[in-house]
């Protein structure tokens, strides 16, 4: 029952966010190790099809996702602190 209070839900969301952050960090580290002309495919959500992309595009996409997550984390953390 305690997990369902505000603090409980906040913890769950924090954990989810932190997981996504770690995922993006892994993506960035993997992409950095590839050569520039390497073929990178991006998986379309909810399907098994992969669209051809590039390392740069995927790196940009990953960075953007990471920035969004950190912003959300800061908002959540700031709200909890208040």
């Amino acid at each position, binding site marked *: *029952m305690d997990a*369902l*209070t*505000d603090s409980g*839900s906040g913890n769950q969301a924090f954990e989810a966010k932190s997981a996504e952050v770690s995922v993006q960090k892994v993506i960035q580290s993997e992409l950095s190790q590839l050569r520039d002309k390497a073929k990178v*495919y991006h998986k*379309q*959500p*909810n399907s*098994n*099809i*992969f*669209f*051809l992309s590039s390392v740069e595009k995927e790196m940009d996409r990953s960075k953007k996702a990471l920035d969004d997550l950190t912003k959300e984390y800061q908002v959540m953390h700031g709200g909890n602190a208040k």
Partner: protein
Amino acid sequence: MAVSCCRVCIVIHFITFSFRLLVLGEKYKNDYETLQERLRTLPNELTHDVMVPFGKLAFMPGKLVHTNEILVLLGDNWFVERSAKQAEDIAQRRIEELNKQLNNLKAQKKLLEPRLEFTSGFKSHMKGKEDVKEIVEEYDAEKERLWDEQHRKNVHKEKEAERMLNKNPPPKPIAAKKQQASDSDLWARLDALEEEEKKRGELESEDSEEEDDDKSGKTLSKGVKQQDQLAKEDGQESDDYSDNDGADDANDGDKETSGNDDTNDEFETDDSEGSEGKRPAVRTIRFTHTDVPSHQCKTAGSAGDTTIDSPADIYKLYCPPSILKKPALGRKKENRKSLPATSKSVGFSSDDDHEMTVKPPSVPSDPPRPKASSSLKAFSGRVLETSQNTQTSGSSPAVHERQADQVTQDELPKRVSKFKASRMAQQGFS
């Protein structure tokens, strides 16, 4: 305590449900947004290089062609072929719908959270962590049982002590004698009071009677006097009607025995003839009905006598069919013909003493009698009290007819079914 736990469970259920829906809604929303982005980029190129899934674990490089032809699922296995732009718009609308649902879910969550806080706080109150404390009575079955036994024993002892006291009262002879004397005095006093009450009751009744006589607003005797007055007035009115009414009322005045009539209600006033001494408590009014042909109404109407002086005149003009039972066989054909629906009027006493049979002026069952032919006798030899006696010449022949009918009725069996009677009558007519 159990109630609070149940409440908490219900609240938890609702909250978890809303949380799950929220999470799902967010996921769907993200999916639609990425789809929108993909649909936006698809028309930019003629073909797209993709890795096509080849079974569960393998992929093959391939190309996407006809990227502007999108089949959109509408639901229930219904698809629609749309362009990329149109599919993008569909996705946008679905995102908006999802946003609405998510807002509702968030509002629901906001409503449920305070409830959860209250129930959780209530639980902590139960534990005694707050200022409010619950009064709890501990129950031990063994202790209760011991207490009950002890209590029973105490009660038993008490009752025995009382019994002993009653059996062996303390020695107080003087007090006992005084008590006996007081008892006898009490009984005597009670008897005296009863006698006084009886006397008072008699006196009161006498006084009340005297007062009623003295006062002008007395009820009992006045009521009796009023009844007498009414009886006298009825007698007078009957005389008046005999003078004033026309031919329609002629046959009503004929005296006739109505022994076999179906409605043997005899109208009479008991105290109308000078019984002014002791008034009876209950007065009975009995009246008889006799057959009256209904064509009287027509004759009255045809004669042009449409003046209405009383309700009886209205009835005579209207002349409805009688609700009374039709008499048994024996009626003459003439009467049958003239009586498609026999109607009955006030009857006559069977005695020859000419008891006063008063006809009330407003009796509804008092239709007029038919006019007999002129060939019949004018005078039957009987004195009639009512007004209709002197109206027409056909009254006495009608009386004769009825007497004859009644004779025949006496001879015939009393009970004949209505249908059979009508059938026989028709056969007789034919």
